[in-house]
């Protein structure tokens, strides 16, 4: 632990002289002449002098996303056999504003930095992940295979700071819920026995 000496304090009276401009933009309460959350994030993303900082709220929430049927396999032999199935796919990042997260940009950098700082986790880029399913399938039996991405959800607030005012303000705050993938997450599977069609 390090202790810095108590430093000089500035009287609050001096602080009231200059005003920075800001407004809080609640997602559900945007007036007609105010930008949408998507517009604000896009503005921050494309302005190299802007700062797009994300402040998380609460712990990361892990779950499995939408399961979808990805394969149908049949064991037409007369003995049990082990099914080995590989599923690959990409899981992107999305938020409640429909913003397009392209990684390596202001906004996504703000997100990945926040996740690394607060949770020591990596928010994955849109890279392909491959997971393997191994399952015993009985003789003359067919299975449908379903897969769903393991996903992470994070709530928080964007703090967007512009060098030049955007929609009349230097600062914009934006509450958000973001969904994507963090380190260690792959695909989840389940299988369902179904009627054979080929045996």
């Amino acid at each position: 632990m390090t202790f810095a000496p108590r430093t000089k304090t500035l009287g609050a009276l001096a602080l009231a002289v200059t005003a920075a401009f800001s407004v809080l933009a609640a997602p559900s309460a945007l007036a007609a002449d105010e930008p949408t959350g998507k517009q604000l994030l896009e503005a921050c993303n494309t302005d190299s002098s802007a700062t797009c900082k994300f402040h998380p709220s609460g712990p990361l929430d892990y779950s499995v996303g939408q399961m979808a049927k990805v394969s149908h396999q049949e064991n037409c032999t007369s003995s049990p056999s082990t099914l080995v199935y590989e599923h690959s796919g990409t899981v992107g990042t999305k938020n409640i504003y429909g913003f397009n997260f392209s990684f390596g940009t202001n906004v996504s950098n703000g997100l990945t930095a926040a996740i690394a700082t607060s949770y020591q986790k990596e928010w994955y880029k849109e890279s392909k992940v491959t997971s393997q399913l191994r399952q015993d399938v009985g003789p003359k039996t067919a299975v449908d295979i379903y897969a769903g991405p393991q996903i992470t959800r994070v709530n928080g607030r964007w703090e967007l700071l512009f060098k030049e005012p955007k929609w009349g303000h230097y600062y914009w705050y934006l509450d958000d819920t973001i969904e994507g993938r963090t380190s260690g997450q792959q695909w989840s599977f389940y299988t369902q026995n179904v009627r054979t069609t080929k045996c």
Partner: protein
Amino acid sequence: MAVAGALLAVLPAGVANAAANCDFNAGTGAYSCSGQQNVKLPSDVVGARVYTGTYYEGDRLTIWAPKDCPKDGWVNHQVRLNNTQWARNIGSVQPFGQCAVWLAFDNGGREGPYEKDNSNVADIGRYTVEVQLS
């Protein structure tokens, strides 16, 4: 630089049953646990958020300021926590508005600066009686 006497922003006592999300204006001293609209002026910015829990959970205190921290080497805002739920009970901190957060103790010492969000300051937060922004 002239120092016109440090004006301590003081939270009112006796808010043990306050709502989970409270707002305090370091410029005006306004304090409310029923919505930021009761506290912030149109031009105010967030200076910091502190939470009773780690990982930004628990009761949240948002500290508003007239402008972002000027990074002039001075402590620009001091917020005494008195006997609110954050006194000696801060689990995580988030600096906003170019501010750095210091957690000060009643023995005159302090810890910081926290320039980035920190999801677990509980070991320090249990001694913290004042939040400073610089």
